[in-house]
């Protein structure tokens, strides 16, 4: 060999493209894009993830497996034979030391399926966008009537104003006009300046209040509360999309009722029986004190296991009727992680009556995290078929 020993190391300076561009990263991005598409196709599963909601960052973390590019493979046998090396005698039995280790070395055409999981972060807003597309919801109608809320709108021009509101185009027009007159000097004077003016205008109500009422009686388990929380989270997301300002009120009740702030709300656990009317009256009280039903869109979502005290039926019915008269929509989710009773409970029946009476109300049985998607879908579609203001 060795006739041609001169040229070594390629041509310097010519091809260093690989320092600027990583094909691996490009194909990695494409993989992630595909994962996102796949996740998007499985929205119910993300929504079901009870632990993944990270409200502060407004992102949802979803653990996903790496995608596999499929090849024909033989079925995994019961017992796999192989060849190994080391200090081992026939008949020795031991546990596979390399289990859970990374895949093998490079190899042509080799696909590895290690159990690597990625944690992808999704923006809550993106997911809500997808949800909306998925459900094809028409937007909610704003409630009739003026509200306190007002906004500044542009209105007219004036010779005085803040510098930032100077309308240069208008000012220049004034200059041109003046220059047309005989004997004028072609420079700006204060006379020419025009400033945009703002005026306060009343806006139709785009304000909403959501009451979340949670049954925290002894019969509600941690898991029940978590189910309710997941559901409430997505309700807020859905409504927040529709209203510029959304207030939330959290009420928990056993035989009594209390208002809480959000972080405490889901931690609360009480003991004792369930008296729904106590909670409903509390809601009513707050509603009357703080919100004018003519100006706000009010929603109530109630989560309970449905075991309302029988003696409370009449009072609860009355309180609920009074509330639904003022709310845009009232929803009831029955969380019962143990057994599915399909709304055949005291509270379930109350809402069934309401619904039969033509009120904007609905109920849904939430037994598992997988049902959360169904619940969100149920409430948001139902609620549009019977527009607010019934």
């Amino acid at each position, binding site marked *: *060999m*060795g006739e*041609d*020993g001169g040229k*070594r*190391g*390629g041509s310097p300076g010519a091809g260093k493209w*690989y*320092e600027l561009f*990583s*094909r*691996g990263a*490009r*194909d*990695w*991005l*494409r*993989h*992630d894009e*595909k994962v996102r598409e796949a996740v998007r196709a499985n929205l119910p599963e993300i929504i079901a993830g009870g632990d993944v909601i990270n409200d502060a960052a407004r992102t949802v973390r979803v653990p996903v497996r*790496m995608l596999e*590019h*499929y*090849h*024909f*493979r*033989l*079925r*995994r046998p019961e*017992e*796999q*034979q*192989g*060849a*190994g*090396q*080391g*200090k*081992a005698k*026939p*008949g*020795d*039995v031991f*546990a*596979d*030391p*390399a*289990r859970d280790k*990374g*895949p*093998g*070395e*490079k*190899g*042509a*055409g*080799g*696909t590895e399926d290690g159990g*690597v999981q*990625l944690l992808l972060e999704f923006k809550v807003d993106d997911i809500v966008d997808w949800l909306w597309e998925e459900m094809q919801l028409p937007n909610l109608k704003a409630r009739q009537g003026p509200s306190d809320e007002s906004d500044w709108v542009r209105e007219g021009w004036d010779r005085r104003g803040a510098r930032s509101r100077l309308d240069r185009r208008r000012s220049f027009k004034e200059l041109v006009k003046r220059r047309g007159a005989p004997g004028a000097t072609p420079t700006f004077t204060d006379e020419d300046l025009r400033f945009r003016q703002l005026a306060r205008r009343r806006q139709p109500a785009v304000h909403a209040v959501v009451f979340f009422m949670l049954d925290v009686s002894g019969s509600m388990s941690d898991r029940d509360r978590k189910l309710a929380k997941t559901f409430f989270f997505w309700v807020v997301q859905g409504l927040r999309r529709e209203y510029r300002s959304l207030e939330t009120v959290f009420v928990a009740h056993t035989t009594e009722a209390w208002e809480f702030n959000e972080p405490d709300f889901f931690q609360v656990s009480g003991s004792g029986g369930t008296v729904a009317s106590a909670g409903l009256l509390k809601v009513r009280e707050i509603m009357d004190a703080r919100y004018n039903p003519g100006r706000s869109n009010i929603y109530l979502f109630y989560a309970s296991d449905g075991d309302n005290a029988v003696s409370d039926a009449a009072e609860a019915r009355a309180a609920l009727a009074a509330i639904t008269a003022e709310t845009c929509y009232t929803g009831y989710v029955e969380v019962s992680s143990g057994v599915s009773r399909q709304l055949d409970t005291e509270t379930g029946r109350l809402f069934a009556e309401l619904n039969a009476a033509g009120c904007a109300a609905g109920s849904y049985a939430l037994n598992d995290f997988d049902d959360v998607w169904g619940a969100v879908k149920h409430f948001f579609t139902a609620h549009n078929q019977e527009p607010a203001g019934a």
Partner: protein
Amino acid sequence: MSGEWQSYVRRIEELAARSGLRFHPVDFEAVPDSFMMEIAVYGLPVRMPHWSFGVRYIYQLIQRHMGHSRLFEVVFPGNPGHAYLAESNGLAENILVTAHVLGHADFSRNNLLFRRCQEQVSERIVEHAAQHARQISQAIETHGAQRVEAALDAALALEQHIDVDQALRRPPYPEYADEPRALVDDAFRRRFAALEPASAAAGAEARKRAPVPPHPERDLLWFVAHYAPEMESWERDIFLAVREESFYFYPVFATQIMNEGWASYWHARLLREADFVPQQAYVDAIKCHSDVVRPIAAEAQVALNINPYHLGFAMWEKIVASQGLEAARRIMEQDDDFGFVRNHLTRELADELGLFRYSARSDGQVKVLEHDLAGLREAILAPKYNFGAPVVSASRVRNDGTLELTHDSTVDGRGLDLERSRKVLDYLHRIWRRPIVLTTVNQAGSGLEVTAP
């Protein structure tokens, strides 16, 4: 690239040539670690884009971060060969790697499987692959990323399904079935024909169209490219590009133990004989060598896979010691891993190296099996049968264009993984555009059909 190392390259090459290695010139290039990793992931320095490489890339990154793998060199056969060395290599590592690369260059120039492949694919696979990558980015521009990806999903899913015994550029099947051989014209025939004119005419019946395929076809990439009922020509090109790369990968895959062993044998030997290498560099290089050919990870007692560097290295040492270098070179030229392991892995060597056969249950319990040399050899080779893929062949195309695929479960011993098979059929269906039926067997061994759509 360090100038110091450069000065050794020439001397190592001369030493290698004196020791009887015959190789094409090799272009060495030092590249960043990140690029080394990409070469390992793609198998070629420039290759078509596909998301599945992204998956391998992530695995590689993880491995690298865990410190499991370090790449010193990647070499591509050809004339001239290309060798990429990691920039982070020290002088000692580079000296070792240079010798190692020359071992590979000798192997790929002389081994028959490599020679055949290079005759078919050409000696410039690196440039060819780059050309394919360019061609595919053009296709993406004209036809859109999604359609190209669909074609690549299908083609790369079948990348192992080629028939290396066929030529890279195969002619299409004969259009007509073989005609019956012309009958010998002798006295008997003439008298026979005179007896009954009708029977003589029957022989000259119209020619019969040959069925497609005329025999079960294992070269699925080729078959789909040429006989898919509604395939775009650019999709065909993608299938043929993937097939060409598979032809290149096959010898690398099928001679891994021999090839890595040969290169390791020669880097160790050249290093021993290279009196011009400074003492310290020699010691460092030998340390590096022993890491590479180490049978089991330092902390472990046993390994459930065999390091091909180690096995190949040990086998070549034994062969050279017992049969001489000439015999070793002959074996290197003529064998692939199947012949190599079956003919030259002896009982004594297997015992010496502590090789064993095991059976692992799905719960992770491993049982070491009785010594059995033939069984051990097959256990080593089993992952390499048929390019590492189940034997699936195209058996028929029905009149409505339905493709029938058949899995040969008698050869493979068990049926296919149904979930994966279904996914592969989904990929393929988007290109074949007619129904596809795959026959395999279930757990109980009775026939089973997987279909798409």
